């Protein structure tokens, strides 16, 4: 028998115990009877889909019985949530922004992420390359881990997104729900009724807005002859983009300086040369004054770079999807054993996901770990481990089992 990395029957039992004690905490989504639910069991079988529940007690009973590894519900509202996709009768959908450290460049990935080529078995640290450097194979397995740096970055993106949704889109706090996913990111739900009917094209426009894509500086007031005061106080992206540019030039990142050194055109050099003048124009206006120092195209390019700092990095495909299944808040994430946990908008700043979302409290469990980087849970750090037995508190043991990095026993 192949080795049982993850000890799934042990995990399923633990999850069941957790839900028996605390299933009441699982809040059903708004208008639950119109949602589709999906469950991924521990046994590696297919997702149980096209289910629906008319009241919380039904849902709770189902969860206690099946003790699934992952629990999802549709962001969409359907007339017939149990029907197959074609005949469900889509009514509308919440908008759910997916912020996931998997899509971010964080320096720590070199320390905790790893890849392996399925073809030749070559291995390496960090993000998986497009092709295996050894054999050119394209099927690479990637192993990613949560860490404080990644989660802080994701939190920062969530906060930028919330700022834009509140200030620019005027979404009232009561319609904004923030959830830690229980793994590497956050979901931000807009449940406002007026959002529900938006089609994919409209959602695309919103995603482009929050990610700062497709911005034309001449449409933000940076065009010849425009009078006015400092663009830093402009509404919406005008102010935000101008502030981004200001910060960017005030302390240019090494990459920009490097490009200038490598002589990417005269224009790039003139940017650093006339930096003080540009900063002055940004501070005093008019916005058109900046064109004295920068051509339209180089300003556009520079702005694009700068705006990336102010824009929120959300996963475009997931966010635009109007049929997506989303993790149900206050359920366990089968990839970590942590709780996918709601966080208040005000509380996000001080939220520590790796402490607050711990579900399992309990004594030492003997396990055998095949490989794990150092990780933190609560106040404790564990690892790194490589092919060794360890005795860990229940939460840490479950975390490693869920990662399929360990098994029960010595």
């Amino acid at each position, binding site marked *: 028998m192949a080795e049982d990395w993850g000890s799934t029957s042990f995990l399923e039992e633990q999850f069941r115990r957790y839900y028996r004690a605390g299933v009441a905490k699982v809040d059903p989504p708004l208008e639950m009877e119109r949602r589709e639910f999906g469950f991924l069991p521990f046994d590696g079988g297919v997702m149980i889909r096209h289910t629906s529940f008319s009241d919380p007690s039904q849902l709770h009973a189902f969860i206690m019985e099946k003790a699934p590894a992952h629990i999802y519900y549709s962001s969409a509202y359907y007339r017939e949530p149990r029907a197959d996709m074609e005949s469900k009768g889509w009514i509308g959908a919440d908008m759910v922004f997916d912020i996931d450290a998997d899509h971010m460049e964080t320096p720590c990935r070199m320390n905790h992420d790893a890849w392996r080529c399925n073809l030749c078995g070559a291995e390496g640290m960090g993000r998986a390359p497009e092709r295996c450097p050894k054999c050119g194979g394209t099927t690479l397995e990637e192993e990613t881990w949560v860490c404080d740096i990644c989660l802080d970055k994701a939190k920062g993106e969530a906060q930028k997104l919330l700022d834009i949704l509140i*200030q*620019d*889109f*005027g*979404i009232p706090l009561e319609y904004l729900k923030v959830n830690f996913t229980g793994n590497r990111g956050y979901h931000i739900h807009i449940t406002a009724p*007026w*959002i529900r*009917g*938006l*089609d*994919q*094209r*409209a959602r*695309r*426009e*919103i995603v*482009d*807005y929050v990610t*700062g*894509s*497709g*911005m*034309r500086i001449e*449409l*933000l*007031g940076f065009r010849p*002859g*425009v*009078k*006015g005061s400092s663009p830093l106080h*402009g*509404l*919406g*992206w*005008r102010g935000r983009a101008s502030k981004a540019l200001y910060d960017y030039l005030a302390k240019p990142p090494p990459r920009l300086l490097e490009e200038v050194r490598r002589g990417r055109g005269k224009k790039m050099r003139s940017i650093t040369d006339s930096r003080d003048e540009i900063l002055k124009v940004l501070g005093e206006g*008019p*916005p058109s004054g900046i064109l004295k120092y920068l051509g339209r195209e180089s300003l556009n390019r520079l702005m694009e770079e700068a705006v990336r700092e102010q824009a929120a990095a959300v996963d475009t*495909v997931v966010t635009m999807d109007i049929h997506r299944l989303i993790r149900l808040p206050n359920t366990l994430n089968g990839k970590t054993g942590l709780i996918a946990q709601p966080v208040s908008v005000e509380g996000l700043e001080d939220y520590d996901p790796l402490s607050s979302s711990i579900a399992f409290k309990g004594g030492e469990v003997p396990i055998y770990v095949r490989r794990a980087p150092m990780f933190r849970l609560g106040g404790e750090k564990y690892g790194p481990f490589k092919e060794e037995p360890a005795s860990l508190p229940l939460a840490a043991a479950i975390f490693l089992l869920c990662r399929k990095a360990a098994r029960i026993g010595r």
Partner: protein
Amino acid sequence: MISEREASKYPFLKEAASLLEHLEIDIENLTDQRYRPILDRGEERVIQAIRYGVVGGGLKDDLAEFLSFPIAVMLVSMTRDPFLERRYALAEAVRARRLLESEDEGRIAEIARGEFRWRIKVQRREIEDTIYSFELHFVDYLRNSSSFREDKWRLINRILTEGYVLLTKAEAVRLLQVEVEELIRRLSSRRVESNMPEQIMERLGRIKRTLDESRSSIGDSALPSEVIHGAFPPCITHSYRTLTAGGRLSHIERFTLSSFLLNIGMEPERIVQLFVSASDFDEGLTRYQIEHISGLRGSRTRYTPPNCMTMRTHGICHNPDSLCGKVKHPLSYYRRRASELRMSPKARKDR
């Protein structure tokens, strides 16, 4: 109650419709000699839409002018021609936009709220060199601007604050045109009884003739509304047949075929099904690629197929015929062949 003057300007308003009910006009009475100018004007509205793409002029008598609108809508819906429905709706919408441009902000907002339930505020703001007159809720904004391709309509390039997009008067009216067009398209696609008095049927005949005569010239700028397989250029027919016969297409052939089908108005979903059912293409990946080409994803550019020269370079120009010698692009071939087919009723059956 709405004035007859207002009803003649904006005959599509709900208030105008209730005026019509109030008048209790019976279809039977339409043949009455007194109503003849109304029928004439109704017919004229449609003919103007076909010929010029905009409805102009009008009767001096406001009530008669107003009554000619439902007549025109009825005539359009009797043709059961989706192309005319769209063309007529656009022509009436352009007319309405021109009239709205000379209204004051209050009236524009009143129509937008009352008729289309827009969340719109009249709020004058001067920012840099632009005078904004309105604030429109972003949901209403997106619903009506999503078909526009210019950068200036993209949400990212608008001033958006506390849920509202700032609009100039011209922009607000341009967005209203989209609503009016949609409303009139709905009205004229309603099915009506085709059993009508002679005076109406005569007019219907004239409209159909004008439409057929004008199709080729209008068709030069607009593609036919339905997919006409018989008008495919030989290169596309070749790829299409290869695909449906389960054969393999090169990457560039797949791109050419899907961008061609998208551009002649085939639904992305149908194209996905075509690829998936005819071969072992992965559905998710195919959908992703088709949506990309259609501009729903990625750079948002809607791709067109390569021109004939590029196709020759790639060796995918197959069996060129005489019409191929006169065009440089597969889409031009399609437009011309489609309008030829429309002109001869016999050929239409071969589709």
